[in-house]
């Protein structure tokens, strides 16, 4: 598991202590990232967790498995930067963003963003913003393997044409 340097595992009891953001790139199931659940303080009235999961079908093809790969050193830095920027842009308490890499099957979670905030408006807005940033610029790639034996680099169709 690669964690952004200054948020490394400083947990106390069930709470992420001190830092307002954490970013995790991991080969393990996202259920194993406790920071995703342990955010929020009694100043926060809203708590929101988004998970992106592998779908069994994409563009009409049956998916057997995905393999995510990353430029890990940059991905954890970028993910952390996104969370940092979200804290500045929105009135939120804490943000934890995590992306899993390696092989995943349909139903498994590939990405998760947890946000706590005083109020729900900013909680939803920050969560959505981070997800869109991840989709837009996190250096992670997805090899999609289909049940018919074919496979593709998702999103690279135009480059390959």
């Amino acid at each position, binding site marked *: 598991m690669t964690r952004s340097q200054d948020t490394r595992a400083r947990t106390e009891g069930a709470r992420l202590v001190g830092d307002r953001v954490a970013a995790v790139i991991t080969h393990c199931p996202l259920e194993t990232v406790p920071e995703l659940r342990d955010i929020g303080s009694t100043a926060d009235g809203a708590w929101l967790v988004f998970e*992106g999961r592998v779908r069994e079908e994409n563009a009409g093809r049956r998916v057997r498995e995905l393999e*995510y*790969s*990353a*430029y890990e*050193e*940059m*991905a954890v*830095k970028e993910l952390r930067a996104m969370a940092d920027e979200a804290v500045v842009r929105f009135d939120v308490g804490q943000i934890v963003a995590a*992306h899993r890499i390696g092989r995943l099957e349909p139903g498994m979670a*590939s*990405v998760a963003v947890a946000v706590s905030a005083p109020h729900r408006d900013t909680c939803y807005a920050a969560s959505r913003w981070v*997800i869109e940033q*991840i*989709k*837009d*610029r*996190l*250096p*992670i*790639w*997805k*090899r999609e393997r289909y049940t018919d034996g074919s496979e593709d*680099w*998702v*999103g*690279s169709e*135009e*480059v*390959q044409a």
Partner: protein
Amino acid sequence: MKEGSAATSDGSLAVCVRFFALYREWAGEGKRYVTLPSGASVADLLATLRASPGLERLPFDTKVAVNLDYVGADHALQSDDEVALIPPVAGG
């Protein structure tokens, strides 16, 4: 040549290029050291790479990160830079 860059003695510069995903397949390797004239930009590096086998289709507007930060095509390279070619991302 920018101040602070560590040029080779003959005035050229050497960078470490990293390939990922589709571009890694095209390159046939994940990492390659490339020597360029001093003052070379990201665009110069891409032109050089496109002349090598497998990388002919590398887009002119390929996204590039230098030392973990995205940069533009006119970014001036320095010796020992880590230059990553970023295929269309598909995180999430």
